[in-house]
């Protein structure tokens, strides 16, 4: 932002950015629009409007089962890949060791493999091992792909750590464990949180791995894919919109909550500070009274 820019350049930049944002939101608006269409077929403009599909989406059994599968997978994947991602981020960026460069490249490989191929490869693998595919095998498949992403997210924060602090803690006689818990971990908490958020979202929206590895179970994206290719039902747009609103509200709520907690802590801290200031001033004033 230190770069000097003329108003014309700024207007043009704003224009570009606005166009991109509209482009990215267009299909979501189209889903919202379609979800209120009263007809069983999609013909625009609609003859009449309804909220019936939202009622069906929230009361029928199928959407509830789909939601259950998606949520269960996302929770398992989030926990597994955040724990594993943190551990491997320590190897990725936290220590100097022989073989690290190779390690860095090797663990990023799954990201470059087309997910269709990875999904099919895992299907053949489970078949060889006589494991029947269910949502659990799909959660494993997603963990394989998502852990490297979480690793990179947390590694970014580890690179930013002050190594001197760790040495200082050792110099002051702190144990390995204590240094780890009190010096290394706290500044990494925000990155661990974003890593977990990434993991949750990537699992929530995953289609290509789930398609081949869920067996008889189906996640929300899988169901939408089947309907999109096999025949339109008016539940597709409404479930699509709900699949967006649910995580958006949850994530938004969590972010807001952490903001509030932080603000409250800040206020608390400043009250405490002013209290102690008051005491100190009182103490200073004390003798003169």
């Amino acid at each position, binding site marked *: 932002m230190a770069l000097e820019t003329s108003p014309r350049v700024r207007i043009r930049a704003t224009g570009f950015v606005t166009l991109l944002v509209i482009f990215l939101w267009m*299909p979501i608006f189209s889903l919202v629009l379609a979800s209120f269409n009263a007809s069983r077929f999609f013909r625009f*403009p609609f003859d009449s409007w309804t909220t019936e599909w939202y009622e069906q989406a929230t009361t029928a059994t199928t959407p509830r089962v789909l939601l259950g599968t998606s949520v269960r997978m996302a929770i398992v994947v989030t926990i597994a890949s955040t724990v594993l991602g943190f551990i491997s981020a320590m190897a990725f960026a936290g220590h100097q060791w022989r073989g690290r460069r190779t390690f860095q490249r090797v663990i990023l490989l799954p990201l470059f493999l087309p997910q269709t191929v990875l999904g099919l490869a895992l299907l053949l693998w489970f078949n060889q091992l006589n494991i029947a595919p269910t949502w659990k095998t799909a959660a494993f498949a997603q963990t394989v792909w998502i852990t490297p992403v979480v690793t990179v997210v947390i590694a970014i924060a580890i690179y930013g750590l002050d190594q001197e602090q760790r040495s200082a803690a050792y110099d002051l006689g702190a144990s390995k464990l204590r240094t780890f818990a009190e010096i290394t971990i706290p500044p990494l908490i925000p990155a661990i949180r974003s890593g977990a958020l990434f993991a949750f979202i990537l699992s929530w929206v995953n289609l290509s791995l789930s398609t081949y590895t869920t067996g008889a179970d189906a996640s929300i994206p899988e169901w939408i894919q089947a309907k999109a290719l096999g025949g339109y039902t008016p539940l597709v747009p409404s479930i699509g919109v709900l699949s967006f609103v649910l995580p958006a509200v949850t994530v938004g709520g969590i972010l807001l909550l952490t903001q509030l907690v932080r603000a409250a802590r800040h206020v608390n801290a400043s009250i405490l500070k002013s209290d102690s200031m008051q005491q100190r001033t009182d103490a200073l004033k004390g003798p003169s009274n």
Partner: protein
Amino acid sequence: MTATHDKERLDELAAQEPRIRFWRNPGGWWSLPIVVLLGVGFAGPLLIVLIFSFMPAGAFDISAQFTLDNYQSITRLSFDRSYITSLRLALITTLICLVISYPIAYALVKTLRPRAANIVTALIVTPLLVSENTRLFGWNLILSKRGILDGTSQSLLSTELPTMLFNEKAIILGMVYIYVPFMLFPLVIGLSTVPDEVIEAARDLGATRWQVLHEVEAPLAKPGIVIGGMLTFVLSLGAISEAQILGGNAVITITKDIDRVFGFQQNWPFGSALSVVLVMITGLIAYFSMSRINLDEVIGGAA
């Protein structure tokens, strides 16, 4: 401080030094869980695919009858055309994404106020909460016959629009739509490593806009451009929903072939051979672009 403490501290310091024996070093231990995970969930499955690709066509079990038939079938049955289609679509997508993302990334990093840039970033990221195929289905509703565009045009202008779905253009639109963020964010990271002073100095010395871009920004932002370009290309090469939802049966990409051969034809060995070739193509691209950049610098530079 006691002697034991001193000894422990020396051990700690020694542990931080590079080139220490693997098992004496915490880094090696930290790497174990993910190495096991990728061994079981990545290397193993890929090995099975590799073995299956040498099995007789239609086999469902691994046997000792190794054959190269499946690889010969790729060109014999003209599946090489699908690879060419996928590579062409991926290249076009990558170029369009680069052209779109560069000015946007520049605006986010250098032009807009940080507050505005944060809001825009949030607006760009939020749609990613919807799965790719669901968003592509949204495009399908916009572009289809009697869809939102055609329907609007028919009722307002009473002109029918030509078919917009089921051709290469629709697939490219879908791929650009899905992969533009994967180009944008590496570019943002890349461009934020270019110091403003350097750009200002170049301007003061009379460099044109193009010269600044070509000789100052691009070389400095290179790691971001390489990563963004590679990610977009490799992901587009593996894309499948775009062709399924917006392409119908008009365009056959290699991923669609693989899906069909495995699923509908139930020919695992041939599907495996097609996959192995695709993996080798993406692997080579990833390997060469990764070897041109220093991961510590790129990922550490984002901190």
